[in-house]
């Protein structure tokens, strides 16, 4: 115990120092919540923190602050729990405070801060940390409740728990966190906190949440090396922090978030890689079935098959300026070349490089930099090498296609099955979000931008704890979308229903995916349930608020029963319920094979009675004119058969106005105006709700 104490006090001392230095920098820490100020210890690795903080843009800081606050809140609660349980344990005290790792000049990361992290923080929840919260909360309790263990046992137990906790904290204390600035295509940037245990996939999900992009499989995080003019996309299963730690202090390296079609192209068009020798037309006309077979052959067997690449590439001689041609061959075990005067038989090949210790990078503008024959260059080097070195292998291809072949081939050889696993995971994610966006986009132009405040908060959480967005977060996100567009006249009716959107939106975050998926499939029947599950259910009007007003259209499913808008609209609705019927027309994004449950698709239609299949926007307009067009026929029919809930809804729709709206939202009624006004209200409501929620939690 003494040791632990000593360690903690050491750490504390360090933190204090850092805090002081922080204090001097006025800018950075403006908004720390009161509680935060009290408890938070800033731990910072670099002394030049101030400087780096100054470099941060204000909004970055804000976002960061929000992240941190979210962390704090979580950790506070946790701490409270812990403290109760652990009174006797001396250890817990200091560490409890959440740590702030403010920092960073743009791209660079802050060095790992030996912070005493709040174990409980959501993020930690994901990985190993999970244990800590559990143990801390649970363990303390058990003894008392347990059927009378002897005092000794209890004591022993408590001691054990304390020790465990201490160990966990120690472990946690070692966890590095980096603040990473990620550049987007449009020149803007997002700032994230990345935990050393996080993999790229998790960070990507964070970015999805922050940017509201379409989550397609091409989105990638890349690192650029300014000095060497290199770029490399991170594979989804890679650890995020590790490569960043290799950057030098003063490097101008950056992390980019952008779409890289080549990331998974091999799974979309395997023939381009595995049958690259065939003529272009054959490749282009490749049937889907044949593509599947190729993938199966090469990625689903006992071993991963690497495309058999062979060709002349230009190699930059070690330390020289000249480029020399050599006949290279790619094999699962590495890249080889055929020595002069030898045959191509395997036994004569000379190993050029094996992949265990190198990564493959794209070279940029090497024609200028190294007088390369073309600009289609790639580089193999140890990830830690950041500057010119004889240990870097420079290769140059004749054209872009050849380069893509080689780089992809090398990735397959190096990462093997992981690549395919990554792809499947991304595809799943993309499908879910496509469904979601289908649905949401129609409902409102909302996609756009959520109110800043809300966003900040939500994103904040997301950041800190990328992995496990709490329900709350999800809701908030949803909230963003919805608010804007309360549809006009129809809208009144619609307002009710947010639930659907919520569920849909929930999907994006990690945990939700499953639920989302399920929902989608079973949606029609279960719809009710799912919606109710989420806090924001319209009826309940939970504090969770964010969702309620927003997504008018989508709600339809649930909505009808509770608040039916004016009769007319309902009539128009018909389409939605019968998922099947509606199904075909609506889903613009249908590209996904997923069975977009009717629910999702449906949402859009309701608003505009006129067009069944109508894309969301149309829906809006349509909404204005309630009854007109005959709803999609099929839709109507199916509903009855469907689960009771649907039936209700459908019934109302078909039969017109059956369920009178219990409550009408006047403001919404006004077509255009409604939207705007609603927004403001929504926002404040959301805020309130959030706060409440926080408090509750």
């Amino acid at each position, binding site marked *: 115990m003494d040791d632990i104490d000593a360690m903690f006090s050491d750490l504390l001392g360090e933190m204090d120092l850092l805090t002081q230095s922080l204090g001097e920098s006025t800018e950075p820490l403006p908004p720390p919540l009161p509680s935060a100020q009290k408890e938070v210890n800033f731990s910072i690795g670099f002394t030049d923190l101030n400087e780096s903080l100054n470099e941060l843009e204000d909004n970055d800081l804000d976002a960061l602050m929000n992240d941190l606050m979210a962390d704090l809140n979580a950790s506070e609660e946790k701490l409270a729990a812990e403290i109760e349980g652990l009174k006797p344990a001396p250890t817990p005290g200091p560490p409890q405070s959440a740590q702030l790792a403010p920092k960073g000049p743009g791209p660079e990361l802050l060095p790992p801060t030996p912070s005493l992290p709040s174990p409980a923080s959501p993020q930690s929840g994901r990985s190993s940390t999970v244990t800590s919260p559990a143990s801390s909360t649970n363990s303390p309790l058990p003894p008392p409740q347990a059927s009378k263990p002897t005092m000794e046992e209890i004591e022993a137990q408590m001691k054990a728990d304390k020790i465990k906790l201490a160990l966990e904290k120690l472990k946690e204390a070692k966890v590095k966190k980096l603040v990473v600035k990620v550049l987007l295509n449009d020149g803007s940037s997002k700032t994230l906190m990345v935990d050393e245990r996080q993999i790229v996939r998790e960070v990507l999900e964070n970015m999805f949440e922050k940017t509201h992009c379409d989550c397609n499989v091409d989105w990638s995080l890349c690192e650029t090396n300014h000095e060497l003019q290199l770029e490399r996309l991170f594979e989804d299963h890679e650890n995020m922090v590790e490569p960043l730690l290799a950057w030098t202090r003063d490097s101008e390296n950056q992390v980019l978030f952008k779409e890289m079609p080549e990331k998974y192209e091999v799974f979309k068009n395997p023939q381009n890689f595995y049958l690259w020798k065939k003529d272009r037309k054959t490749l282009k006309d490749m049937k889907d079935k044949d593509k599947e077979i190729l993938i199966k052959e090469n990625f689903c067997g006992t071993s991963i098959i690497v495309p058999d690449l062979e060709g002349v590439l230009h190699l930059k001689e070690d330390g020289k300026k000249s480029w020399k041609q050599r006949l290279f061959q790619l094999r699962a075990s590495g890249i080889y070349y055929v020595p002069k005067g030898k045959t191509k038989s*395997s036994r004569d090949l000379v190993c050029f490089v094996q992949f265990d*210790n190198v990564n493959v990078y794209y070279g940029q503008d090497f024609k200028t930099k190294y007088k390369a024959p073309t600009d289609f260059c790639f580089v193999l080097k140890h990830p830690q090498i950041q500057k010119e070195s004889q240990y870097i292998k420079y290769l140059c291809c004749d054209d872009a296609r050849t380069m893509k072949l080689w780089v992809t081939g090398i990735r397959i050889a190096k990462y093997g099955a992981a690549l395919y696993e990554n792809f499947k995971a991304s595809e799943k994610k993309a499908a879910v979000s496509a469904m979601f966006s289908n649905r949401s986009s129609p409902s409102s132009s909302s996609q756009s931008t959520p109110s800043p405040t809300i966003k900040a908060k939500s994103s904040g959480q997301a950041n800190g704890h990328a992995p496990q967005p709490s329900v709350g977060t999800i809701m908030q996100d949803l909230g963003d979308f919805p608010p804007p567009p309360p549809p006009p006249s129809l809208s009144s009716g619609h307002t009710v229903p947010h639930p659907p959107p919520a569920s849909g939106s929930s999907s994006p975050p990690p945990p939700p995916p499953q639920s989302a998926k399920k929902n989608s499939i079973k949606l029609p029947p279960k719809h009710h349930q799912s919606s109710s599950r989420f806090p924001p259910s319209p009826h309940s009007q939970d504090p969770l608020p964010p969702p309620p007003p927003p997504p008018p259209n989508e709600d339809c499913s649930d909505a009808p029963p509770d608040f039916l808008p004016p009769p007319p609209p309902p009539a128009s609705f018909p389409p939605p319920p019968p998922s099947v019927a509606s199904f075909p027309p609506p889903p613009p994004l249908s590209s996904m094979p997923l069975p977009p449950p009717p629910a999702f698709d449906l949402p859009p239609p309701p608003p505009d009675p006129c067009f069944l299949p109508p894309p969301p926007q149309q829906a809006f307009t349509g909404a204005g004119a309630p009854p007109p067009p005959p709803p999609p026929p099929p839709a109507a029919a199916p509903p009855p058969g469907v689960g009771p809930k649907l039936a209700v809804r459908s019934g109302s729709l078909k039969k017109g106005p059956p369920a009178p709206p219990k409550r009408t939202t006047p403001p919404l009624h006004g077509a255009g105006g409604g939207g705007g006004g609603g927004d403001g209200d929504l926002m404040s409501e959301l805020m309130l709700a959030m706060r409440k929620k926080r408090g509750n939690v």
Partner: protein
Amino acid sequence: MAVWDLSVTVEDLGADAPPVTLSVTSDLHVGGVILKLVEKTQIQQDWSDHALWWEQKQKWLLRTAWALEKYGIHADARLVFMPQHKPLKLGLPNGKTIRLLASFSSPVFQTVTGICRMLNIRHPEELSLLRPIEEKRKKKEKDMSEELYDITMVPLSSASRPCMYNGMPAHFADSADMEAVYKMLSMTQPPPAPEVVAKQYRPASVVDKAHINGRWLDSSRSLLQQGIQENDRLWLRFKYYSFYDIEPKYDVVRLTQLYEQARWAILLEDIDCTEEEMMLFGALQYHISKVAQSEPQLLASAAAMDDLDSALQSLEVKLEGESSSASEMLDNMTAPELNDYLKIFRPKRLTLKGYKLYWVKFKDTSISYFKSKEECFGEPIQQINLKGCEVAPDVNVAANKFLIRLLIPSPEGMNEVYLRCEDEQQYAQWMAACRLASKGKSLADSSYQSEIQSICSFLAMQKTNSGSHGKTPAADESINTYSLVSPRYHKKYKAKQLTPRILDAYQNVSLLTLTDAVMRFLQIWQSLPDFGLSYVVVRFKGSRKDEVLGIAPNKLIRIDLGVGDVVKTWRYNNMKQWNVNWDIKQMAIEFEGNVNIAFSCVTADCKIVHEFIGGYIFMSTRSREKSDTLNEELFHKLTGGHEAL
């Protein structure tokens, strides 16, 4: 109806016994003939496995309900009455020979199925029988015969799955001898002596490799029809390189034999690989044979635990016992260190001339060095983190040289650092530490001790090698490195040069379990570019020279013998149909897009080629739902040609 005499030779009466003559009518069915025959011989025994064989027509009369007339049998027919199952000497992929009863009357496909059932190999459709290569066989036959494993006493059974007992088929559990047979089947063999490898036939070219494929038996005809006699020798091999649903739990024998076949393919250069790949195969063979000795069964042992997990666990264990103080716990947690005087040399740094003695401390994944032991509490001269570095051995036991070469990455490039150790023990400890550190593991890792051990045993190997230049066959600990690589490398490298190279490859596989190592070996084998190719020399229609057709699990390739290069590839999934003209022995294949090819087969019967293609298509139709029952009919349809229909 006229009665006539039919003479039948009854094998059981002995070779010299005169044929038995029966009076029969043409409408007597085969069953009736057999009945008469048995009555006439007056021998009491189980005749149920016997059947009539029509010698002139090379045909079994298996349909007992058919009348003689229907078979077209007249008085001039010479029939033989004999058992359908006879002993066969079967060369297994692992080089051992087993004697067992095989069906001489059913199509080879079924015969193989029966054999595999007896040997407990799943998916018999992937294997087949071939005639062995004759050369050098005569000399060897004498010593080989001693090694014969005889299981002809195993009763024939028709159960599709043998019942298991003690993890092996019940018939192997009967006696110690049988258990020994099963052990031979299910455990990998120690590396062969280099002389054995050197003596074996090695194909020198693609054409040589093509010749072996002319030896496959026809799956749709019986052994006897193909001239195989009782006690003849055949090889059992995996023929179709499309291994379905490998499950180490059930496939102990299958995996072992597959590994053996792959190993021999590598050693005999039946499949080409690069030097680096050869070293890795060598390292895996070494590891497999070593683990197989210590680990009796193909069972996976628990993977190495994460160090912290293990620390926590041991903590728990401790807590249950005496109450120990937290500081003790912490002691447990603190990583072990290595401290010693070592000589360090940094080639790139001109400041250090030659090796200089330092006090070196190894902790976590870093090395720190100090001028002397006394200064070790101060600032080190330098601290080097080994994570991600490359570690290469440079050892010569005879010359007492124990060098660890480290290539350490830094932003500026790689820095070379050499550590020179005094003796084996010190070297093994530091080397193991460096290896673990390069993978980001600390000394606390559970694999540290085993890493040290494997380094020591490898060094021991080098010792024996340098002593008696590989004369002694593999005995326990001392495995000759020449046993692990193909003879080509015997010439290229001296044993002591080979050892460090294999050791180098070995560091990446030294912690695998037996099953994992076998699987890894198979995976690397399967990812070789030439894997799965069976060659046949053919002559394409309109071409005047011989070319080679490579038959792969998913495609056909055309290889120009002059260039030695693949000139064309056709995939089966583009294939519309294929035909065989049995008269002119030509195969014609039509692919989508109006692509037609035709060729005659030079080194193999076109039935063999036909069967290969049909067989691979059959293999691709297998699916999980149907995997339990083999669709033999489909197989014959795809591979049988006109005879089967």
